[in-house]
C-alpha cells in the first residue's frame, strides 16, 4: 500500500513537469501513428494513382497526394516506422558500443584510454554524414547499411559522455567500498557505476535519437539512405523539394512529422534533465 501511494506521489511530481508531459504526449501520438502505420494505412503507401497527381489536401487525402498520386498520409505513417527503426537502431549501436568503450577507457584510464580515445577523436573529427557517406559507398545502399554507418558515427560522442562520467565516478568512496568488498572490475563498472549515470545516459540517448532522425533524413535526402519505394520521411522530404511551390502540402506533411518527432523527444529529454536536476 505504502509503495502504491509513493508511486502516485512520484507521478504527481512528474505531472508538474509540463515539458516532460508534453514531450511524452507528442511522442506517444507519433508512436501510435507509427503502430497504426504498421497495421493499417488508409491507402496502399506504394499505390500510384495518375488521376490524383499532386492533389491538394482533402478529406480523401488528409495530407494531399505526391507526384505519383500516392497518398502522402499513408506514406507518412509508413515512413515514420522506417525512420524510427533506423534512428532506434543507430542509437542502439551507438549506446551499446559507446557505453562499453566509455566505461573501459574512463574506468581504467592509462594506455587503453589514450589509444581508444585517439581512435574516437579520429572518428569524431569526421563529420558523421561524411563518414556515413563513405561507409554507404563502400558497402552499398539500403536501410541496414545506413543503420550501421550512422551507428558507428554515433559511437564517439556517446563514449565521450560515458567516459567522463566514469572518470568522475571511479574515485568516489562508494566505488572504493565496492572494490574493497572484493567486487571485480566488471562488477564495479556495470553494477555499481552504471546505474549512477543513467540520468545522463537517458538524456543523451534522447538527444542522440534526434540527431539520428535528422541524419537519416539527411542521408536519404542526399539519395544514399533508404531507397524508394521504401517510404521514409527524409526520402519524401527530398522529393517534396521539387514541388515546393506547386504542391507545398507535400513538404508540409512530411516536414511536420519530422518536426513533431524531434520536438517530442527533445522535450522529453529536457524534461527528464529538469526532473533529475
Amino acid at each position, binding site marked *: 500500500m505504502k509503495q502504491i501511494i509513493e508511486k502516485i506521489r512520484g507521478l504527481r511530481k512528474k505531472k508538474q513537469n509540463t515539458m516532460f508531459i508534453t514531450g511524452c504526449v507528442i511522442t506517444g501520438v507519433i508512436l501510435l501513428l507509427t503502430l497504426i502505420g504498421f497495421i493499417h494505412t488508409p491507402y496502399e503507401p506504394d499505390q500510384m494513382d495518375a488521376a490524383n497527381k499532386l492533389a491538394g489536401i482533402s478529406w480523401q487525402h488528409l495530407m494531399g497526394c505526391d507526384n505519383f498520386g500516392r497518398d502522402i498520409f499513408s506514406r507518412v505513417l509508413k515512413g515514420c516506422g522506417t525512420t524510427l527503426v533506423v534512428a532506434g537502431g543507430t542509437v542502439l549501436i551507438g549506446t551499446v558500443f559507446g557505453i562499453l568503450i566509455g566505461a573501459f577507457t574512463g574506468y581504467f584510464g592509462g594506455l587503453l584510454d589514450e589509444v581508444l580515445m585517439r581512435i574516437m577523436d579520429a572518428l569524431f573529427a569526421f563529420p558523421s554524414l561524411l563518414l556515413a557517406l563513405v561507409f554507404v559507398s563502400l558497402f552499398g545502399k539500403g536501410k541496414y547499411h545506413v543503420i550501421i554507418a550512422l551507428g558507428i558515427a554515433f559511437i564517439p560522442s556517446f563514449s565521450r559522455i560515458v567516459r567522463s562520467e566514469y572518470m568522475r565516478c571511479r574515485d568516489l*568512496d562508494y566505488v*572504493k567500498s*565496492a572494490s*574493497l*568488498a572484493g*567486487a571485480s572490475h566488471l562488477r564495479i563498472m556495470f553494477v*555499481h557505476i552504471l546505474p549512477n549515470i543513467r540520468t545522463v545516459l537517458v538524456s543523451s540517448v534522447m538527444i542522440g535519437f534526434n540527431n539520428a532522425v535528422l541524419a537519416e533524413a539527411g542521408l536519404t535526402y542526399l539519395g544514399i539512405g533508404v531507397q524508394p519505394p521504401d517510404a521514409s520521411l527524409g526520402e519524401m522530404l527530398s522529393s517534396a523539394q521539387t514541388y515546393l511551390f506547386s504542391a507545398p502540402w507535400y513538404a508540409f506533411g512530411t516536414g511536420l512529422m519530422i518536426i513533431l518527432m524531434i520536438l517530442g523527444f527533445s522535450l522529453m529529454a529536457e524534461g527528464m534533465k529538469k526532473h533529475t536536476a
Partner: protein
Amino acid sequence: MLLEVKNLSIEFHDHLIPETVVSGVNLELSEGQILGIVGESGSGKSMTAHAIAGLLSRHDMKKTGEILFEGQDLLTCPRAKLREIQGNEISVIFQEPMTSLNPVKKIGWQVGETLRIHTQLDKAQIKARVLEMLEKVELDDPEKVYNQYPHELSGGMRQRVMIASAMICKPKILIADEPTTALDVTIQAQIVKLLQRINRKEKTAILFISHDLSLVKTLCEQVIVMQHGRIVESGLSEEIFNHPREDYTRLLVSAIPGCERGKRMQEKL
C-alpha cells in the same frame, strides 16, 4: 600475528619529482587487538591504511616493503587472491558516510553485496543475514532501513550501515579510516562504543585511524603516532598519553582539550 607491515614505503610518481608519503612504516596487529594510528592531516596514516586494504593500485605509485596478512604478502599477491581477502578478511569503513554508500542502490542490497561476492548464499539467506547485521549495529527498524536509500538516512545511521556492510562477512581486520570525523560528538561516542562491542564480541582486530586523540585514548590499547609519513612513537596507549617520549607526541597530547577549566569552575561553585 594476524597482520605485519614491514618497512612499508609509498611514493607518488605523478609529478616530476617523486614524493614520498609513507616511509619505513612497521606495525603489527594481532587478533582482537585495537590499534590506533594518530597524526595530523597529511601524516600518511590514511595512506598506510589504504595500502593495507589493497586500495592503492594506481600505476604512478611505488610501494615497497611487505604487508603480511597471515603470512601472505598483499603487495605482491595476484589481484584475484587480493579480492578474495578484501571484504571477506579485511574490511574498511571510510570517513565520509555521505559518499561511501551508492546513492542509487537500496541499503539492503549494499549491505548484502559482500555476501553476494564471497558466498553462494541464496537471496533469502542473504536477506536474513543483512537484517540480522542491521540489527546488530543497533539500527532501530532494520526492515524499514533495508528498503531505504542512503539519502533517507542520517549521517550516524549511514555510518552504522557502513559498519554493517563491512562486518557482514565477519572479517578478521576492520580498518576504520577516521570513521567519526564527519559525525557530531554524541554520535561519535555511539559509533566508538559500537566498534568496541564488535571488537569484544567478534574478536575483530581494528585498525583505528584518527586525529581525535581523546577517542584513540579511550578506544585503543596500542597507539602509533605518525608525522611526515614516519612513525614517531609507538607503544601502549597509556604510556604514550601519560609519558610521551618524543617532542611531537608531547605537543599532540598537550593539544587534547581537557576539562581543567570546567573543574576549576566547579570548585569555585
